[in-house]
């Protein structure tokens, strides 16, 4: 007995030593291999083993106060940094609480890996405690998802998840981890590049399509660049800027594309669509060539489809073939990574003999003059007041006092649109906003994620009094994690955007949009040991912002704004984008 005991414990030859480790150890090791140094999460029974391992690892864990906040924070981290964000949730309600945030990331193509605990395999399907079919629930709102059913699949699955989240058109990937898989003993497979024969997005543009696009650009008399979130995701702002400036092409951006081209550049028309600028919507409507880059012709952009860019030939660069000709029929599709496609286009013009910038500028002269006329006729504006605070004024001052360098997150509604209109973003990854899904409650946790990615940056959540209350519990996360985010509440005691629709289209029936009661946000801030500041008059705005920016703490700025301020221009739903309400 004795001898056999020793025999079984004889070390094997070095070459044959398999590194037997637990599933939990393997997950942490794999996360480190993927370069993860920060995880947002919330523990629970199904993932307790993994948390035990996480405690020993150098990976920093940020404990949120609600799982939705974890995934939004991971999303904010990803948008700000360009890296894959990671969230860790427990089974059942932990996982379902994350769903809204997963759908948010899915709608905006944000690379996030969400790890969820699951009941042990033997209990799956048994309606066990805290069991839910999260793979089934998130199937339509993830790029892909997995239930790890075999310990040997654990590490390869995690690697695939990270690869898929970031490759091609990015998106959230969920990996559901049964408790017994986390506890299992496994052989840790060596790291090797992920190969997925069934997922090979086309990243390089077809040279013939590039040539066709370039020739169309050369001949255009009224071109417009229509830039979307794909430009931010693919880091191709420099390529866009080069192309626009070299060829004198006016640029309009979607909400997700803001910062893809400098907002203060004379060629910038600002945002287009429902709350876009007059110049942007007119330019698109009258253009003869629309160059769509990483944008997807969303209904908030196009308005009534048959009236969208009716005179334009359309070039569409997108990595996702299903985006092309989905809503608007495209003449010259280029399925590719925006960065590579734009580089190829720029290169084509660089190599074009007798191409002259000045000749191109001259060719577009009348068009640029027309565009300038539109810009001057109806610039973005508002009727200022000497006493009452106008929300647009607050945004302008926020931009001014941060030199346009802050990372801005937003909630959803009027606050979001004013931020998009009046904070003119010159850089990519500085506006983090839930564009596709429109998730109220996004801004605060996303700001925490962005702040932790860039501890030195000024991060401001532009919020409304309604939406801030959707995830206000994350103030505790901000405090605990040392993320001194600033929250600027544009407080009108209304759910402002819906109220605006009710005012304009529902005979001022303010059904359920009057928020007569909200907490005192200044007192609330102090309850969280944060700093609360309030401005009730225009004169108080700048001092409040200055004090907030100088404070190394979480700050809530409560701006009591003109109650029934509206976001203009506005294209009523279902109307052509030229049918703007301007004041």
């Amino acid at each position, binding site marked *: 007995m004795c001898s056999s005991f020793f025999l079984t414990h004889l070390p094997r030859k070095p070459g044959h030593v398999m590194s037997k480790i637990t599933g939990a150890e393997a997950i942490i090791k794999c996360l480190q291999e993927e370069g993860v140094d920060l995880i947002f999460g919330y523990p629970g029974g199904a993932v307790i083993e993994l948390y035990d391992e996480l405690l020993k690892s150098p990976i920093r864990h940020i404990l949120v106060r609600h799982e939705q906040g974890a995934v939004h924070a991971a999303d904010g981290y990803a948008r700000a940094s360009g890296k894959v964000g990671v969230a860790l949730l427990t089974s059942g309600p932990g996982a379902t609480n994350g769903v809204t945030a997963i759908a948010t990331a899915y709608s905006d193509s944000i690379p996030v890996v969400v790890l969820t605990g699951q009941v042990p395999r033997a209990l799956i399907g048994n309606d066990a405690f805290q069991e839910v079919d999260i*793979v089934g629930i998130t199937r339509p709102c993830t*790029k892909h998802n997995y239930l790890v*059913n075999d310990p040997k699949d654990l590490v390869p699955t995690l690697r695939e998840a990270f690869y898929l989240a970031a490759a091609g058109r990015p998106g959230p990937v969920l990996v559901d981890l049964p408790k017994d898989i986390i506890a299992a003993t496994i052989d840790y497979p060596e790291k090797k590049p992920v190969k997925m024969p069934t997922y090979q997005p086309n990243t390089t543009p077809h040279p013939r399509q590039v040539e066709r696009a370039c020739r169309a650009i050369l001949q255009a008399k009224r071109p417009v660049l229509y830039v979307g979130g794909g430009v931010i995701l693919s880091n191709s702002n420099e390529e866009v800027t080069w192309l626009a400036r070299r060829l004198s092409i006016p640029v309009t951006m979607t909400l997700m594309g803001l910062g893809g081209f400098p907002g203060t550049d004379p060629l910038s028309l600002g945002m287009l669509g429902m709350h876009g600028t007059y110049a942007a919507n007119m330019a698109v409507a009258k253009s003869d060539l629309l160059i769509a880059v990483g944008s997807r012709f969303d209904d908030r952009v196009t308005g009534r489809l048959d009236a969208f860019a009716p005179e334009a030939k359309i070039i569409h660069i997108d990595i996702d073939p299903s985006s092309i000709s989905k809503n608007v029929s495209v003449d010259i599709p280029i399925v590719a990574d925006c960065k590579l496609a734009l580089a190829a286009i720029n290169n084509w013009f660089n190599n074009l003999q007798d191409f002259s910038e000045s000749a191109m500028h001259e060719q577009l002269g009348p068009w640029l003059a027309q565009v300038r006329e539109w810009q001057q006729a109806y610039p973005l504006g508002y009727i200022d007041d000497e006493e009452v605070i106008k929300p647009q004024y607050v945004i302008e001052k926020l931009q001014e006092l941060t030199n346009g360098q802050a990372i801005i997150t937003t909630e959803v509604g009027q606050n979001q649109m004013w931020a998009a209109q009046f904070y003119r973003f010159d850089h990519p990854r500085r506006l983090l906003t839930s564009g596709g899904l429109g998730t109220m409650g996004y801004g605060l946790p996303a700001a925490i994620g962005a702040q932790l990615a860039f501890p030195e940056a000024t991060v401001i959540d532009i919020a409304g009094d309604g939406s801030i209350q959707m995830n206000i519990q994350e103030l505790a996360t901000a405090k605990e994690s040392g993320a001194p985010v600033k929250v600027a509440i544009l407080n009108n005691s209304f759910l402002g955007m819906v109220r605006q629709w009710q005012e304009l289209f529902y005979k001022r029936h303010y059904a359920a949009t009057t928020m007569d009661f909200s907490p005192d946000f200044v007192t609330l801030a102090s309850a969280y040991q944060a700093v609360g500041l309030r401005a009730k008059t225009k004169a108080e705005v700048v001092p409040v912002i200055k004090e907030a920016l100088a404070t190394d703490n979480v700050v809530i700025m409560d701006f009591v704004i003109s109650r029934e301020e509206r976001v203009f221009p506005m294209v009523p739903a279902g109307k052509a984008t030229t049918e703007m309400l301007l004041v």
Partner: protein
Amino acid sequence: MKHTLTILLRNKPGALSRVTGLFSGRNFNIESLCVAETLDPELSCLTLVTKGDAAIIEQITKQLHKLIDVVTLSDISEGEYVEREMVLIRVKADGQSRAEVLRIIDIFRGKVVDVSPNSYALEITGPESKIDAVLDILRPIGIKEIVRTGKIAMKRAPKK
């Protein structure tokens, strides 16, 4: 217009629900669906019949392509193909109709697979139009129950 899609799918848990979920989630239409393993046990073959104009079919195929578990996909109704469907029909067969049913089934090259004193269960294979024709003929005699498989299809080999 009807389109027949042949989809090669990774044989993974949940793969089929990704396909069907895509159809329901995006408001596309499934007329029929047939799934079984292929020669390669890691892959399943789906034959899916759907309906829609060119733009819808384009979206359907592009969206299906995006699914990680979809290996290949072709709209085989764009070219020459063979299609088959099988139906099991329980038809009333008593007295005078007993012989009549047998004559009909003979014409359609079907088989009787179950017999009872007052009914026959019939098996018939063929393209959809043939199945529809048999059902039309048998209906006046009295069809009690049918089970159809949905269509399977295969591209014809190139003629050279």
